[in-house]
């Protein structure tokens, strides 16, 4: 599943960040690494996706979120 498809208040885990080295580096260094647990705070149409990860509220560009594969936690 893609991060951009998750609904608000879903807890999930990052499966893959894709292969764009530049992007992987930027997003990893701000806290989204593969295997980390996070929570979707808000996901509105035409807006960046808001997530909460490592005690930080992050806004991620929508297009970038399509590169992130996630799995929903039970």
């Amino acid at each position, binding site marked *: 599943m893609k991060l951009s498809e998750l609904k608000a208040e879903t807890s999930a885990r990052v499966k893959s960040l894709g292969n764009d080295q530049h992007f992987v580096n*930027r997003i990893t260094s701000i806290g989204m690494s593969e295997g*980390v647990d996070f929570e979707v705070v808000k996901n509105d*149409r035409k807006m960046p996706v808001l997530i909460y990860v490592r005690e930080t509220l992050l806004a991620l560009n929508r*297009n970038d979120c399509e590169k992130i594969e996630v799995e929903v936690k039970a």
Partner: protein
Amino acid sequence: MNRIALLGQPNSGKSTVFNTLTGSRQHVGNWPGKTVEKKDGSYTYKGVMYEVTDLPGSYSLFGNSDEEIITENYIRRKEADLVCVLVDASQLERSMYMLAEFAELDAPAVLLLNMMDVARSQNKKIDAEKLSDRLGIPVLPFTAAEDKDYDKLKDLFEKELVQPHKLSSVPDISNMQDAKEIAGAKYAWITKMLEGVTETGKSRFKLDKWDRILLSPVKGKIVCIAVIFVGFLAAMMICIPFMGVGSMLPGLMNRPIADFLNGFNVHPWLVSIFSLLIPNTLYFSLSMAAFVFGVNIVFGFLEEIGFLARTAYQFDHVLSKLGLQGKAVAPMLMGLGCTIGGASGTRVMDNWGQKMLAMAIVWAVPCGSIWSVAPVVSSMFFPAGGTILVIIGIIAYVFFMMWVVSKVFGKSLAPEEQRSGMIMELPPYHKAHWKHIIKEAFYKAFDIFKRALRTVMLISLIFWAFSYTSTGNVENSLLYKIGTVIEPVTRIFGMGWRTFVAFLSSAFAKEAVLGVLNALYVGQGSVADITFNASNAAVDPSLLAVSMNSLVSKAEALAFIFACTFNIPCVMALITTYRESHSFKWTARVALFYIGSALLLSCVIYHVASIFLH
């Protein structure tokens, strides 16, 4: 030599620490051969001098951006005797990533747990001693806005420079090739270091009442625009008193200086330079500094309380269509007041190409001065209804111009594959530390003032040389002679030599346009005197209208209004853009593009309008 380098992620409070440590004893320049800002400063403590370097960079050290390469090499070459790594104590697990990256470089270090006030307000407890034992380097809990914490920091620096410590524990990344695996190992190391030191990442997130409004798609946008509008008014209120005093300087200083020098029989050229140019340069530089001061106070405040990050979130989607991202929103709105403010506001953007592109686009936003000139000129030629159409036309062209600029420069400045979409933390709402906001705004304003003095003087001198007359009669100036010679060429662009000269002066300062027109058409006052503000010969719009109407056609007037509006904003905005981008090449390119496109626009409007307007 005691050289300390500061390293930390954005929002770690690094610049506050740097500014407070060094005060006004800092120097801003470029890293050799790069478009990256280099900030050095110094302070004296107990009679010993310490040099401080603010290392550029973003969230990591090995991402191959110019900033990161500079920082990595700087630390590797041991140019600093001590590296002070700053982390955000309220988001310790995430911000320790910078320390994990730094660990590979094997250099003497101290760790600063900044934002302890925020961490405390969130009831986060951090055992700094335990962390220090594990890491093998000193760990200092710190609040960048607390003056008393700085003595502790300076004591620590003093001690560590004599007896430095290096990290005793580092992430184990031997035999690892894959970047993701390495990142995983670094976070695992952080988790190990923080175990028992602080509680990490177990809390669930709840939006507070402010964020429920500010982050909602419609209500949030309305509130953001309203707040920025009010913020803009506040910035104007701050700078108007300074500008008022500044604007009186040329008028006040002109006569006394001229009389004084004439008393010594000084050559009239020198009298003119000292009595016209210098007071005006002071005025322009002071205005510029005042703008930067006002804008930085408001921006500093909005940024520190966490508001700007929310605005960026709201407008990311729209701006990504121009090749920009959410963080460009505030500079663009500020551009409606003053392009200088807008251009210096782009410093929040972390990608250089997008920052330069944002400045190029901000230039297309008509500033306050244009709105005070364009409607006046328009009303001399067109009835009220026509003037409203002209204004609507200008607004429509603004959006078109933004789109054109993003198309023309977007490909090379921010190519699709290098565009960084917004990845931004929304910090928790903070209280503002006013003293520090004002101090930082003052340093920035003072820095601009010093630079502006030099540059404005030089450019003024060139313009003065062209417009100087000993008699006050326009026809004796070099400007007139060149103007009449080149008129056949300027006619192609739809402008006679007079409107063309006024167009040129609009690149110098938009507010000067009316005065210059007055000098050229009514013949009151010399162009030099008016452009340099020494004589504010009151412009009588009705008299000017009569004179202009007899010499200028409606089509030429229309072409002229658009050409002035979409010319380069002003010399001061040009300087600010150069200063923020550190790239002469790109500033010049964008400037040439604006002049060229303004002339083309003027040409098209004139020839099309000539068919309809008589």
